[in-house]
C-alpha cells in the first residue's frame, strides 16, 4: 500500500516567539547542501507515496525549484496529494516563490501560516507579513492553478476576542480556502512566550475553551466540517496526508527531527541538521501501531474509534471496559457512543487528553 511522505525543511527567516520547533536561518550554500541530502536520502527508497507533505520550519524558504528537485527523486503516484507549507511573506510578491513551477511538478495543495486575520495579532505572534500579504500569496497560488488552500489559525493569541476571531474566520472563508487548521496556542517551555506568559495578556483556560467552541461554530457555519480536533474542511478536502497519522497508517519522514512509521516500527532522524546532512541513520523509536496507539489517535477524529474498524485491523473489537468507561462520560457530554463507535464531542475534544487517559487507563 502506498505510504505518506513527509519532508522536513528546518529553515526559517526568523524565529516566532511562541515556537519551539527546530529551525535555522538558511544560506544559499546550506539550501543547496540540504536539498542534495534530502534527494540522496530519497534515492533508494523502495516505497510508493500517495501523499507528500513539505513541512517545517518554512518550506518556502527552500525555493520552489529545490522542492521540485526533491519531488523528482520520490516515487509519487499520479493522484497523490502534495502539500507545501508556505510563509505568506515569502510568496506574496510578484516573481517571488514560483507556485507555477510547483504546480507543474504536481503540488496541488498549499498550506499558509496565516495565524490570524488581524494585523495586530499577527504582529504579536512575530509574523513578518500582514493580512494583505497573505491575501496576495493566496491569490498567486490560485493563479498558478493551486486552489486547494489551507490556512492556519491560532486560538488564544494575546488580545484575541470573540470578535477578532470572527474576523479571522471570515477572512479565511472569504479567501476561498478549502481547509482550516485552528490550533489552541500552547506556551512551550523555552520560548519567549513562556518566559513572558504573565505579561502577555494571554487568554486563560476558560477564555481559550470559549474561543475554541466559538471557532468551531463559526467555521462550520461556512459549510466546512470539523474532522479532527484542530482541523476543518469542505467535504472531500480533508488532508489525506494528515489523516494517515490519525488512522495510524504508514509514513516516511525525511529531515532532522522527522519521524517515520513503517512495518510496525517508529523511528526518526536526530534533531540535528549536520548529522542529517552527513548521512546519519534514523534512530529507533520503538514499536508502533498497537491498539492503544490506534485508539488514542482515532479519538482525535470526529469519526472516532469504531468497533468495526478495530475488528478489521486487529481481529478483536473495542474492549468492553473501554465502552464501560465511555458510557460514564456520555452523561457529562464529553463523548457519544453510537452503533459501536465512540466519538468525542467538541467539549470532549477540549479535554481530550483526560478523556483518552480515562478511556485507556
Amino acid at each position, binding site marked *: 500500500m502506498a505510504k*505518506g511522505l*513527509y519532508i522536513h525543511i528546518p529553515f526559517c527567516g526568523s524565529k516566532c516567539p511562541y515556537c519551539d520547533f527546530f529551525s535555522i536561518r538558511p544560506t544559499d550554500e546550506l539550501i543547496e547542501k540540504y536539498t542534495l541530502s534530502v534527494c540522496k536520502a530519497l534515492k533508494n527508497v523502495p516505497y510508493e507515496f500517495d501523499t507528500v507533505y513539505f*513541512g517545517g520550519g518554512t518550506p518556502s524558504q527552500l525555493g520552489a525549484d529545490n522542492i521540485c528537485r526533491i519531488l523528482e527523486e520520490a516515487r509519487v503516484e499520479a493522484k497523490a496529494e502534495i502539500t507545501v507549507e508556505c510563509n505568506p511573506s515569502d510568496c506574496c510578491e510578484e516573481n517571488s516563490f514560483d507556485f507555477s513551477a510547483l504546480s507543474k511538478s504536481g503540488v496541488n495543495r498549499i498550506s499558509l501560516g496565516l495565524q490570524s486575520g488581524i494585523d495586530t495579532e499577527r504582529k504579536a505572534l512575530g509574523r513578518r507579513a500582514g493580512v494583505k500579504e497573505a491575501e496576495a500569496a493566496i491569490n498567486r497560488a490560485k493563479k498558478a492553478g493551486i486552489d486547494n488552500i489551507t490556512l492556519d489559525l491560532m486560538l488564544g493569541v494575546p488580545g484575541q476576542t470573540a470578535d477578532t476571531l470572527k474576523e479571522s474566520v471570515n477572512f479565511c472563508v472569504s479567501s476561498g480556502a478549502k481547509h482550516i487548521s485552528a*490550533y*489552541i*496556542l*500552547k506556551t512551550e517551555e523555552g520560548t519567549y512566550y513562556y518566559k513572558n506568559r504573565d505579561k502577555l495578556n494571554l487568554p486563560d*483556560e*476558560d477564555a*481559550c*475553551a470559549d474561543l*475554541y467552541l466559538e471557532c468551531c461554530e463559526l467555521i462550520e457555519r461556512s459549510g466546512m466540517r470539523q474532522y479532527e*480536533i*484542530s482541523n476543518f474542511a469542505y467535504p472531500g478536502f480533508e488532508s489525506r496526508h*494528515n489523516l494517515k*497519522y*490519525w488512522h495510524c497508517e504508514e*509514513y516516511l*519522514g525525511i529531515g532532522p*527531527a*522527522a*519521524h*517515520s*512509521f513503517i512495518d510496525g516500527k*517508529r523511528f*526518526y532522524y536526530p534533531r540535528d541538521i549536520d548529522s542529517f546532512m552527513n548521512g546519519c541513520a534514523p534512530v529507533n*523509536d*520503538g514499536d*508502533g501501531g498497537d491498539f*492503544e*496507539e490506534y485508539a*488514542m*489517535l482515532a479519538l*482525535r477524529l470526529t469519526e472516532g474509534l469504531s468497533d468495526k474498524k478495530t475488528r478489521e485491523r486487529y481481529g478483536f473489537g473495542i474492549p468492553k471496559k473501554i465502552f464501560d468507561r465511555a458510557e*460514564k*462520560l456520555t452523561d*457529562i457530554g*464529553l463523548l457519544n457512543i453510537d452503533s459501536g463507535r465512540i466519538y468525542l464531542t467538541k467539549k470532549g*475534544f*477540549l*479535554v*481530550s*487528553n*483526560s*478523556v*483518552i*487517559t*480515562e478511556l*485507556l*487507563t
Partner: protein
Amino acid sequence: MAVSKDKIRNFSIIAHIDHGKSTLADRLLELTKSVALRDMTEQILDDMDLERERGITIKAHAVKLDYTAEDGEIYELNLIDTPGHVDFNYEVSRSLAACEGAVLVVDSTQGIEAQTLANTYLALDHDLEIVPVINKIDLPSAMPDEVAKEVEDVIGLDCSDAPRVSAKTGLNVEQVLEKIVTAIPAPKGDDSLPLRALIFDSVYDSYRGVIVYVRVMDGKIKAGDTMLMMQTGARFTVVEVGYMRAQSMEPASELCAGEVGYITASIKTVRDANVGDTVTLATNPAPEPLPGYRKVLPMVFCGVYPADGNDYEALRDALEKLRLNDAALSFDPETSGVLGFGFRCGFLGLLHLEIIQERLEREYDLDLVTTIPSVIYKIHMTDGTVVEIDNPTHYPNPANIDYCEEPFTNAHIYSPSEYVGTIMDLCQSRRGVFKGMDYITKDRVDIFYELPLNEIIYDFFDSLKSRTRGYASFDYEICDYRRSNLVKLDVLLNGDIIDALSFIIHSDMAYAKARKIAEKLKDNIPRQMFEIPVQVAIGGKVIARETIKAMRKDVLAKCYGGDITRKKKLLEKQKEGKKRMRSFGSVEVPQEAFMAVLKLDDN
C-alpha cells in the same frame, strides 16, 4: 581501667530551644579533646539530618569526656544530651534519671523561656544539682546581669558565680567544665551489690542488634554475663560493654556502679530492651528494679497511610524500628474506606508527629498520607457508658450521646510584654480560659491560660510564633477533661463522605473551619472532567460548600507524525499521575490537597 567513683560526673545540659545547648556541648567536646578539630562539624551530637536542620535535639545521646581539672586529677564526665522541646519531656525525664547534675543554659539576650522552666522543674524533680550558665555574652544585646538576676528571682538558683560564656566563641567555657567537677556530686552506688542498670536509651544497629545505653546504679557488668531485663524477663548473654565516645564506641572490660556506657548482647527484638527497664544479672538478680520513668501516654493521634498500598509492610517495619528508639510512639493497624490499610499512630504532640512523619519519609523512603490529628475524646452515652475515641470515624451517632469531654491543658506563654494583646486574642480565639499573668521582669510576662488540647495541636505554635515575631515561647501540660459542646465534621466530595478528612471540633468553631476546609479543597483539587461539589456537613446538615468547576482545556492541539510518540508519553504520564491520585468515588484527589487540608493555618 575504670576511674574511681569520686572522679565520675554524670550530667545533662538543659536549655530552651536555641539557647545554645548543642553549641556548648560541641565546645566541651573540643576542650576535652574528645573530637579532633578537623573532625568538628557543627553540633556533633545532633547526628540525624533532621536535628541539624531544625536545630533541635530529638533523641537522647550520651558521650564520655576525659577532663583534667585544675586540681590535676583526670575526671570522667558523662554528658547525656536531652531534647529541648515540650513534646519531649518524657525523653528529658529519662536522660535526667541517669544523672546527678544538670547544666542549665540561659541565653543572656533572651532570659528565661518556657522550656527553661519546664526542664528546670524536671531536673529538680530528679534531685539534680543545677549549674546555671549564662550564654551568648558575646552578643551586643546580651544582658548577663539582668538575666542572672532573673534566674535567681524566678528559679531561686544562686548565680553569683555562674559561668558567663559564649559557647559560640568558646569564651569562658572551661569554667563550665570546672563547675561540673566542683558543683555536681560524684555518683553513689556500690559495686558489690547486685547489678541494677537503668536503660535510658537504645539504638538499633543492623550488625550488632539493639545497643542499650545504661547508667549503672549498683553492681558491675561485663562481657559473658547473662543479663536479665527486670520488666520483660528476657535474658541475653552480654557480647560487649563499653563507653560512648564522640565518634566511636570504646569497648571496656566492665561497667561499674556510677558509670554510663553501652551493652550489646545480640538483642534482636525491640520490645526486649525497653527504655526505662532495669538490667540485672540472671545469676545474682537485684531484688527490686529501679523506679521506672513517669509513664507518658501519647496525646495526639492520626492515621498514617502509605501512599502506595504496597508499602504497608514497609511502613510497619519502619514504625517498629522507630518505636525502638521512641517509647512514646504508639501505632495500631487501622483501615480507611478511602486510604486503605494503615496505622493509627499516637504521638506526644504535633512536633513529634511531624518529626516521625519526616523520618519515615526520609530515612525509610516512604510516601505517606496522614489524616487530621485528633486528641482522645470521652463520649458519655445516653446509656451511661463512656467511649474513648481518638479517631473521628468512631464518633457515635449523636442521638446516642449524652455529652462529650475533651482534654484541657495548663499552658504558659512567656513573651515580651508588648505582645500580650495579640497573644490573648489568639488564646481567646482558641477557646482559652485566662487564668493569670505574672511579670517576670518589667517587660517580660508569663501568661497562664487553660486551653483545650485540640486547639493546640493544629497550628497554635506556628500562629504564636508569627504573631510575636518568634519571641514568645510556650509550654503546656494536660490538666483534666472537661465537658464540651463537640460536633463531628464530615467532608463530602461529589456527595461521598471522605472518612479520612472527618474530624471533631467545638461547635462554635465548626462554621469557620468548615468554610476554610471547603476553600482549601477547592484550591488544591485540580479541575476534573466534571464539576465537583465540595461540602462540609455536621450529620446531614451541610454548613459549607464550594464547587470545583469542570476542567475546560486539556488538549494536544497538534498531533502529526512527530507528535505521536510525544502524545504516547503524555498518555503514559497521565496514567501514572492517575495512579498517584486517591480515588474518592469518582473524584481523584492528589496528595497535595490532602496535605493542604491537614495543614490548615490562619493565613
